[in-house]
C-alpha cells in the first residue's frame, strides 16, 4: 500500500532519475506515432482510483510505474493508489474484486482474467481502437487477449508480455559445432546432444513451475502442432502431433542436466548462473541480472538468445505471460479509469517503462518495436517480437476458466514430465492428460 499523494515527489524523483539514466527522450522520438485524436473521456470530478497490479520482477517496473502514476495525478488531479500483489495472489484478489464489486477500479491482471469476468468489466473498444491506430496496431497475442472471444469487442488492454526464448552459451554452442542455434527440432536436438557430450547439458523445468514449466511444455506441444482443445473447446490433446511432441521430449530429456523433474521457476536461472547449464529458456530478466553482477558479467557476455524451434508454418510457438489490464464496471469513475490506462499506454509514459524494465514486459503495440530498448543491446532483440505469438494457454480453444484450471493443475507439464522421464509411455501420458483435461472442459 502506497499513498501517492504523500510520496508523489519521491516517485517523480525516482522516475526522473531512471529517465535520466536511460535516454528516454531520444527513444521516444524514434517511435512512429499516428496523429489520432484520443477518445473523449471527461474525467469525473473528485475522481480517485485504486489500481492493483502484480508485484515487480525488476525494480524499474515498480519505480517507473509509480512515477508514471504520479505524473497522471499531477496532470489530472486524480488521486491513484497502486497496490502490488504477489503473482500468485493477484488472481484470487481479482476474483474477490469482481465478485464483491468493491476494491480496485483497475486491475493489471493476468491474461485470462478479463475473459473470466467479461460481464463485469468496462468496454475498452474505443480506447483500444485509438491506441491501435496511434501506435501501428495491436500485435497478435494482445488482439487475442484484448478482445472478447469471437468478437471485436475489446474488454481489456494488454500492457506487456514476458516471453521465454532460448538462452544459451555462445562459446559452448560453437564448441559443439554450431555457429547459431538451429531453428528446426532435429537440429535443436542435435545441438543439445552435442552440448551434453561436452559436459554443458541443456536444462528445462519439468517440475510444477508456473512460468518455466508451462513455457517449455507448451512450446513442445504447440511447436509440434499439438493443442489441448480445438476451436470449440473440445479436448483434442490425444493426437499424433502430441505423440510426436512427447517422443521428441523423451529424446531431448536425455540431453538434460539431472534433476529437471523437480525444477521450479528459479532452478534454471541458478544453474545457468553457476555455469552448469549450456542452454535453457528464460525471460530477459536473467540476462540482465547476470550482466549487472560483476561476478557473472562474463556469462552474460557469452550468452546468446534465439527463437526456440518454430511451429509448422514457421510460426513462433513460445508461451507468453501477458499483463492484461481491465477496469471494473463497478468503478464510480469509469472515465478516470480509462484515462488512467490511456495515459499509461501513451508513449511518454509507456516507453520509459518499457526501457526501464529492459524489455521484460514486451510491448503489445507494434510501434514500440522501434523503442530504444531493442536497440541498446542487440542481443535482446529476440524478445522484441514476444507478443507476435499466435499461441495461447488453452490453445486452440476459448480463453476460459477451464483453460486456466488446466494450466494451474499442470496437466500439460506433467504429461511431458511423465513421458520425457520414461515414467509412462507417450501413449499413457497423453491419455492421462486427456482424461484430466476433460474433467475441466466438461
Amino acid at each position: 500500500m502506497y499513498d501517492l499523494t504523500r510520496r508523489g515527489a519521491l516517485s517523480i524523483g525516482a522516475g526522473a532519475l531512471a529517465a535520466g539514466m536511460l535516454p528516454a527522450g531520444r527513444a521516444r522520438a524514434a517511435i512512429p506515432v499516428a496523429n489520432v485524436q484520443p477518445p473523449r473521456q471527461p474525467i469525473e470530478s473528485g475522481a480517485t482510483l485504486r489500481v492493483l497490479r502484480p508485484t515487480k520482477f525488476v525494480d524499474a517496473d515498480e519505480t517507473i510505474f509509480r512515477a508514471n502514476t504520479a505524473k497522471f495525478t499531477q496532470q489530472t488531479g486524480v488521486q491513484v493508489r497502486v497496490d502490488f500483489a504477489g503473482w500468485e495472489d493477484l488472481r484470487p484478489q481479482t476474483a474477490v474484486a469482481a465478485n464483491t464489486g468493491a476494491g480496485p477500479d483497475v486491475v493489471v491482471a493476468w491474461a485470462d482474467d478479463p475473459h473470466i469476468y467479461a460481464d463485469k468489466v468496462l468496454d475498452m473498444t474505443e480506447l483500444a481502437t485509438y491506441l491501435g491506430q496511434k501506435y501501428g496496431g495491436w500485435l497478435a497475442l494482445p488482439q487475442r487477449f484484448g478482445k472478447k472471444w469471437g468478437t471485436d469487442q475489446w474488454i481489456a488492454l494488454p500492457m506487456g508480455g514476458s516471453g521465454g526464448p532460448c538462452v544459451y552459451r555462445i562459446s559452448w554452442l560453437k564448441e559443439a559445432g554450431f555457429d547459431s542455434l538451429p531453428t528446426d527440432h532435429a537440429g535443436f536436438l542435435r545441438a543439445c546432444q552435442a552440448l551434453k557430450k561436452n559436459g554443458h547439458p541443456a536444462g528445462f523445468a519439468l517440475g510444477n513451475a508456473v512460468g518455466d514449466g508451462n513455457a517449455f511444455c507448451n512450446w513442445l506441444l504447440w511447436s509440434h502442432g499439438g493443442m489441448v482443445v480445438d476451436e470449440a473447446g473440445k479436448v483434442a490433446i490425444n493426437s499424433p502431433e502430441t505423440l510426436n511432441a512427447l517422443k521428441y521430449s523423451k529424446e531431448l530429456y536425455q540431453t538434460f542436466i539431472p534433476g529437471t523433474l523437480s525444477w521450479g521457476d528459479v532452478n534454471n536461472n541458478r544453474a545457468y548462473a553457476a555455469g552448469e547449464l549450456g542452454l535453457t529458456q528464460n525471460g530477459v530478466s536473467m540476462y540482465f541480472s547476470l550482466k549487472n553482477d560483476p561476478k557473472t558479467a562474463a556469462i552474460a557476455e557469452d550468452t546468446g538468445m534465439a527463437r526456440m524451434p518454430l511451429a509448422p508454418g514457421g510460426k513462433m510457438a513460445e508461451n507468453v505471460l501477458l499483463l492484461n489490464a481491465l477496469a471494473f464496471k463497478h468503478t464510480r469513475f469509469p472515465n478516470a479509469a480509462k484515462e488512467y490506462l490511456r495515459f499509461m499506454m501513451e508513449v511518454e509514459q509507456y516507453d520509459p517503462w518499457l526501457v526501464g524494465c529492459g524489455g521484460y514486459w514486451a510491448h503489445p503495440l507494434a510501434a514500440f518495436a522501434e523503442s530504444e530498448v531493442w536497440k541498446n543491446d542487440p542481443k535482446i532483440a529476440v524478445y522484441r517480437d514476444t507478443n507476435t505469438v499466435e499461441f495461447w494457454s488453452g490453445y486452440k480453444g476459448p480463453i476460459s476458466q477451464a483453460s486456466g484450471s488446466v494450466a494451474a493443475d499442470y496437466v500439460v507439464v506433467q504429461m511431458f514430465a511423465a513421458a520425457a522421464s520414461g515414467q509412462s509411455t507417450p501413449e499413457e501420458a497423453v491419455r492421462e492428460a486427456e482424461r484430466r483435461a476433460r474433467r475441466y472442459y466438461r
Partner: protein
Amino acid sequence: MSVTTGPVTNWRRPQVQQGWLARLFDSKIFLIIACLTPAMGLLVVFLTYPLGLGIWLAFTDTHIGRDGVFIGFENFESLWYDRVFWGAVFYTVFYTGVATALKFALGLWLALLLNENLPFKSLLRAIILLPWIVPTVLSAIAFWWIFDAQFSIISYVLVDKLGLLDHYIDFLGTPWAARWSLVFANVWRGIPFVAISLLAGLQTISPSLYEAALLDGASSWQRFRRITAPLLMPILAVVLTFSVLFTFTDFQLVYAITRGGPINSTHLMATLAFQRGIPGGQLGEGAAIAVSMIPFLILATLFSYFALARRKWQQGGDDE
C-alpha cells in the same frame, strides 16, 4: 386478562426491592448464556462457519469468481476416478504414518536421553527446540537447498569432497526419493515437539518408583517396560494425536519444496486442495478434497479420545 393491583404485589413480597438488572444477573440461565455467548460466537464465526462453508462448497461447483450451485456428490464422484487424488491420499497416509512413527521413535529416545542427568541440560533442551521454533517456510527453504538437484550440500560433500559417489543425488526428481526426502524434513521438524512433550511426561514420573524397582532388581528394560511406558501412555496418546493431526494437514513443507512434484508423486491432500481450489479456481473441487480429509482426522481424534479415557494406566493398573 390481568388485574394488576399494587397492594397485592406488595402483600406477597414486601421486602424484595431488587432491580430488574440484579434479578437478571441472578438468573442461572441468563448467566450461562451471557458467559457462553462470546466463546460460542468466536467458535461459530471462526470455526463452525468456515467449516460449514467448506463443506457446503464441496457440494457445489463454485469457481473463483462465480457462485456455484448445489451438485450433490458430483465432486466426490469425479475425485473417485481421479488418480491424482488417490495418489495424494496414498501419500498423505504414507507421509503421516511413516513420519509419525519416526518422530515418535526418535522423539521418545531423545526424551529419555534428555531425562538423564546431562551437563548443560537446560541449554541442550533449548537447542532441541530450535527446529520447531524456526518458521516452517524458512526450514522448508533450507531443505529445498539441501535437496537441490545441482547445489545440494549433501551431494557436494559425498561427490566432491569425499568422492563416495560419482553423481549428484536427485533427491526431488524421482518419486520415492522425493517422498522420503519430504518425510525426512518433516521428521526433523517434528521431533522437538514430541521430545519436549514426552520429556515433560517423563518428569512427572516419581523417582521413587524407579528406586523401588532398582531395589527389586529390575533391569533397565524392565523399568522402561513396567514403569516408564505405562505412566507415559496418557501423554503419549495426546502428543500422538496432535502429531498425527499436524502431519496429516501439513502443507508448507511440501508446497515450498516440491509443490507436489515430480509428477504429483508428493501431493498431500492439503496441497492438492489448494492447487485445485485457488490457483486452479475450482473452489468446489478443492473444498471436496479438503472435506475428504475429515474422516481421517475424525478417526485420529477418536483414537485419542479412547486412549485418553483409559486413565487407569496412569495408576499402573490394568484396563478394566
